[in-house]
């Protein structure tokens, strides 16, 4: 039964026009994670590579393609956890980073802390040699359209994102 990798691309509303891209994205990322496992890689390597691929895919709400905050900017959160040691690493409200999951893993591996946030996470990224990326490189036309759509008075961003009750 081993090895195994299971991936999700988010439980929110997926418009029909994006359904195929979503499915193709999770399948492609899963193949990449499985190849690492088949090659003897660790489960941590597999989940970080899998989620990195999804962060780099503009279809998903993570990394490039993240939703915008009320100011039209992107703040991201990420977590990794190791089942052998119960070690974990996380970053929150981090900006201008292409792959927050990789930064979260560095928090786990390179610090004695569990989570770094905002400017502290950015300073740590610089110290680890993680390049900053411009905000524009993380914003897509789709995320900007949904941001504008939900600025209207009476808009319901959570319902827009989550969809109706399942």
């Amino acid at each position, binding site marked *: 039964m081993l090895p195994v990798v299971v991936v999700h691309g988010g439980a929110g509303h997926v418009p029909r026009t994006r359904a195929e891209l979503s499915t193709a994205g999770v*399948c492609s990322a899963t193949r990449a994670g499985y190849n690492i496992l088949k090659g003897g890689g660790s489960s941590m390597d597999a989940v970080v590579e899998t989620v990195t691929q999804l962060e780099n895919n503009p279809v998903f709400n993570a990394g490039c393609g993240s939703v915008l905050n009320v100011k039209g900017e992107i703040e991201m959160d990420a977590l990794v956890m190791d089942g052998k040691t119960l070690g974990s690493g996380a970053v929150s409200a981090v900006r201008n980073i292409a792959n927050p999951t990789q930064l979260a893993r560095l928090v786990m591996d390179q610090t004695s802390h569990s989570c770094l946030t905002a400017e502290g996470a950015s300073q740590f990224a610089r110290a680890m040699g993680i390049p900053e990326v411009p905000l524009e490189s993380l914003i897509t036309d789709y995320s900007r359209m949904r941001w504008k759509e939900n600025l209207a008075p009476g808009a319901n961003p959570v319902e827009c994102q989550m969809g109706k009750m399942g």
Partner: protein
Amino acid sequence: TVGAVAVDTEGNIACATSTGGILNKMEGRVGDTPCIGSGGYADNNIGAVSTTGHGEAIMKVTLARLILFHMEQGHSVEAASDLGLAHMKSRVGSLGGVVTVDPQGHWAARFNSLQMAWAAAQKDTLHYGLYTGEHFTQDL
């Protein structure tokens, strides 16, 4: 939000979750994803979970650790995932989805929202779906 759980050939388990958060959120708002036990949890002795949904609701029920608690009580990965999601829906009226795995390699991709893009790879077979009830397979 995106996430993954995995068990390698040595039986070590891990999870990862990453998100841009909620549409038009306040500046500085942080959801469940970076919170251990809510956005994800991994323990070689029990299993691993990665969650997605409305972060404030997931944190209220610490969804990832709740599902693993049900697995510690003997429930299967699928039943435990459904119990956790059902509790979140009944207790705080919110929807979500999870991917779950146990140390033997049993896995589940469960959600009570209308959709969740998911995929799994095991024994050289790729499993995937998007809408409720879908489960497609193809050889890897």
